[in-house]
């Protein structure tokens, strides 16, 4: 028989451990991407030209090179420069930095969608700049872009497999158990099903969020 149920059940714990690593990498990576992306977006708008141009350059560079190349760079080049993290941390930093460059654009769009009158009202009330951001602009900009941010988390979830070059996440685990027995159909099928089981409900959630944000604004 092509499909061996006994084998599939045997490898399940191994694959679930891989799934857990994938989910952890996604959550931590998104946390980095959401926070860093916001910082990038704000620095891009800052009135310090050197800083905003440096961030622009970084964002353009990261967005125009493949994530895999960036991960290879972090894994193999940084240690030569004396910067050493464990494989998982390096992966999370890589994912987070890469996606921060995309979320920065998402935040930027959200910020620009806040009407000019809101800024003018803040000026008329003499609100300090920091409070303008935290009290008025971001609370209006961020809810609007939550669906877009959520979509990036889903893409990131699927791209964690690139960490397989050195981390036993879901796909890495599937390959590993497969290479022990030379049976690949069960591990990779199950890995695919796991991705589907997480991504699909997450996608439904994001679409529901989209509708709610649509009503709110």
């Amino acid at each position, binding site marked *: 028989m092509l499909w061996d149920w006994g084998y599939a059940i045997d490898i399940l714990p191994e694959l679930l451990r891989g799934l857990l690593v994938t989910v952890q990498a996604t959550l931590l990576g998104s946390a980095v991407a959401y926070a860093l992306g916001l910082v990038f977006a704000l620095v891009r708008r800052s009135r310090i030209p050197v800083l905003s141009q440096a961030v622009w350059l970084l964002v353009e560079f990261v967005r125009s090179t493949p994530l895999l190349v960036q991960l290879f760079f972090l894994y193999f080049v940084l240690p030569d420069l004396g910067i050493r993290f464990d494989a998982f941390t390096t992966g999370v930093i890589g994912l987070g930095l890469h996606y921060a460059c995309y979320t920065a654009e998402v935040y930027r769009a959200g910020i620009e969608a806040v009407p000019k009158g809101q800024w003018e009202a803040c000026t008329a*009330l003499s609100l300090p700049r920091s*409070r303008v951001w935290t*009290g*008025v602009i971001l609370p209006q900009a961020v809810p609007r872009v939550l669906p877009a941010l959520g979509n990036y988390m889903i893409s990131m979830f699927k791209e964690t497999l690139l960490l397989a070059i050195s981390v036993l996440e879901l796909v890495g685990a599937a390959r590993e158990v497969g290479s022990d027995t030379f049976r690949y159909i069960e591990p990779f099928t199950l890995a695919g099903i796991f991705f589907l089981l997480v991504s699909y409900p997450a996608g439904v959630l994001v679409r529901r969020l989209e509708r709610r944000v649509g009503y709110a604004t």
Partner: protein
Amino acid sequence: MIVFEKVVKQYGGNVVLRELDFAVQPGEHVTLIGPSGSGKTTILRLLMTLEKADGGTIQVGEDYLTHMERRGKLVPCDEKHLRRVRRRIGMVFQQFNLFPNMKVMQNLTEAPVRVLGLSKDEAAERARDLLELVGLSDKADAHPSQLSGGQQQRVAIARALAMRPDVLLLDEVTSALDPELVAGVLNVLKDIAKTTDITLLCVTHEMGFARDVSDRVLMFDQGVVVEEATPAKLFTDPDHQRTRDFLRAVIERA
């Protein structure tokens, strides 16, 4: 209270204000009328520091808005100086510009707490008094989106007053409202004009309102003051043909 001296403002090659001179006394209620694009709103926006003048000087009280004095000389002002002068001025916008992410109460307490350093309780008390003044005591916990345009504008008036400004700028505050909501907003403003000693500078197309509240009306056209007079004089017996044409056009439209 306010002194404009030879103020120039241009957008691109388009000159909006040509060496404008005019002054407003403390407590005076002055209305600016004139065709669209004649520079009326620009005057308010310059005072609120939403725009920068290209030439001339603007004074608010004893401070310059365009410059600051340093060692007896006038130098271009910095942000800190602007902040201080700006605090004496409040503005109500055509589009209300309430903060949609805050309830009415927080719209009113935000700046008094963050800028004037009032305690939450003091600010809330001040806000309740103002909501009563504008007839919206029951809306403190509403979100701006739940209010009609007229109600939103009355909240915006209360929000500006919560900062206790010396000068209140009103920029076509009823232009975005449905006709039946205009009277409610104007009545609140008439009340404020009558019961406070605030300096009012309004841009409006509501000639009835201009007549009721103004001490002085300025007719603007193409960046200069064509004519200024008491409302009684200007609305019944204007000296200039340009003013007569404008008033006739406005009355025919209404």
